[in-house]
């Protein structure tokens, strides 16, 4: 009898000890978890480079324009063609398809206004200048700014003028003209006066500023992880779907611990907003894509960048562009850290949709293969199959 009692007592003691060291979290882990919660997201700062950023009329016009297929060469492509409202403002395709197929994956838009740099390579430095780029890209909307200016005047004239003031005289402006694009459009652009070109550019810019005003309202919804984090921070027991399973908790601990995910996927949007080479393999049948290193010259040359004449407000807002990192091997094949909110339900992954599943993504980070050019920042991490599965299970709590 005493022997059985003793064995029971010993097991009870060990179980108690095990429970003490079990899931729950150290103070450092709690602080990290709190830093990832959506409640830690600060209010959006005003965008002084766009004086219409918080103008409800501009946002409403921007919303109309976002869904307007007429803002394209052949009337078939709107922003929402790839940024689908019912699909987290992305399209589930490895490569976006507008008028033609592009070389990059469509990015989702929740929280997009918190970015300092736009696109996978950061080749634009404001939400409004970003919105202009696909409009003239021959593979996306494939239109031209003179045609857009005429369309705005004809279709939205009064509404536009109520927000932005009087339209310029467009009567002598060619139907199609842009400094980019086809030779005939370039020639038409060159034939215009400086004042005509500036007038068209201002309408074009205001299209971007209106769309940006609309996009500032696109925020990520709270998830199971956020409800869990809130309970943890307040010291209450998580209830209902805020309860994370043992596997999800293990995944969370790995995410903020040994797997080092939180190094780059930090803050409430799970991104550092910066650019990294993480050894993602190139997509098959695409030209070489060198990422950030090739975007630097492009954003510096962009006439719509923060230091250009179309910015509202003062140059104090242009710190990111003024102090842009221009050189270094680490910019080669560096792409922006994407947010992980909602990622579990929007495969495929990476800048050209190279990976079909989260399991493949996790494997790439942990195995840290060499980069085809330059050097990956990743170091290999040894995780068991169960631990890898736990990481994936945790990532799913960011999308429910």
């Amino acid at each position: 009898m005493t022997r059985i009692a003793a064995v029971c007592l010993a097991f009870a003691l060990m179980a108690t000890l095990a429970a003490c060291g079990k899931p729950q979290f150290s103070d450092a882990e709690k602080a990290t978890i709190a830093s990832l919660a959506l409640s830690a997201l600060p209010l959006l700062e005003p965008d002084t480079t766009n004086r219409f950023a918080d103008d409800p009329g501009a946002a409403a016009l921007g919303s109309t324009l976002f869904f307007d297929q007429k803002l394209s060469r052949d009337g078939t492509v709107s922003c929402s063609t790839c940024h689908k409202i019912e699909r987290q403002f992305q399209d589930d395709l490895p490569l976006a398809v507008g008028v033609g197929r592009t070389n990059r994956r469509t990015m989702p838009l929740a929280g997009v206004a918190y970015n300092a740099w736009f696109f996978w390579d950061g080749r634009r430095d404001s939400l409004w200048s970003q919105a202009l780029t696909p409009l003239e890209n021959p593979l996306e909307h494939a239109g031209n700014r003179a045609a857009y200016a005429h369309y705005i005047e004809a279709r939205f004239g009064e509404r536009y003028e109520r927000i932005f003031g009087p339209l310029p005289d467009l009567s002598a402006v060619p139907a199609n003209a842009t400094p980019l694009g086809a030779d005939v459009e370039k020639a038409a652009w060159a034939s215009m006066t400086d004042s005509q070109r500036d007038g068209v550019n201002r309408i074009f810019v205001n299209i971007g500023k209106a769309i940006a005003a609309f996009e500032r309202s696109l925020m990520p919804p709270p998830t199971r992880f956020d409800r869990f984090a809130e309970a943890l921070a307040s010291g209450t027991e998580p209830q209902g779907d805020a309860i994370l399973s043992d596997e999800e908790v293990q995944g969370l601990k790995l995410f903020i611990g040994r797997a080092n995910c939180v190094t780059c996927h930090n803050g409430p949007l799970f991104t550092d907003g910066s650019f990294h080479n993480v050894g993602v393999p190139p997509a098959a049948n695409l030209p070489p894509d060198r990422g950030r290193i090739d975007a630097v010259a492009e954003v510096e040359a962009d006439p719509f960048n923060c230091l250009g004449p179309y910015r509202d407000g003062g140059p104090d807002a242009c710190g990111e562009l003024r102090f842009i990192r221009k050189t270094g091997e680490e910019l080669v094949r560096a792409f922006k850290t994407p947010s992980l909110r909602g990622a579990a339900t929007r495969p495929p992954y990476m800048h050209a949709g190279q990976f079909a599943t989260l399991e493949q993504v996790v494997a790439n980070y942990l195995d840290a293969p060499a980069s085809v050019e330059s050097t990956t920042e990743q170091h290999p991490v040894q995780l068991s199959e169960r631990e890898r599965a736990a990481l994936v299970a945790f990532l799913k709590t960011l999308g429910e």
Partner: protein
Amino acid sequence: MASLGRYLLAAFGLAAVLLGVLAAVYVSGFGRHDAASDISRSRKTANGLFMVSIEPEKGAVRQGELHTWLVTVTTAAGQPVEYAAIDVSGGMPEHNHGLPTSPQVTDYLGNGHYRIEGMKFTMRGWWQLRLSISAAAGSDTAIFNLAL
């Protein structure tokens, strides 16, 4: 009763071993990089030419935001170093990458004080800030460790 004592002893022994292992892992994790342990914001340059102090201009440094730092350069004897050329670089030694921005000295404020704009730290962890200083006395470098 003797066997109960033995079992208890075994259980405690096991617990002690586990705790020891955990403690070793914990301690080794914290002692990982001695180079990063000196986080003083005032130091001599490598060859002793200058004394350099740094501080963020507006108190706390927030991850992911651009901010400015103030740098004070004096000679080893404590004389302010005027109109030095200061090159700013750095990065995260553990992640094979430099600074995410290219900070620059944008202003000489007099009396050996300089302003650096465009500093940004995108991650938590061990950062290094390297200031290469050239002035009449010569050129020298100071490396600061920053723990974010």
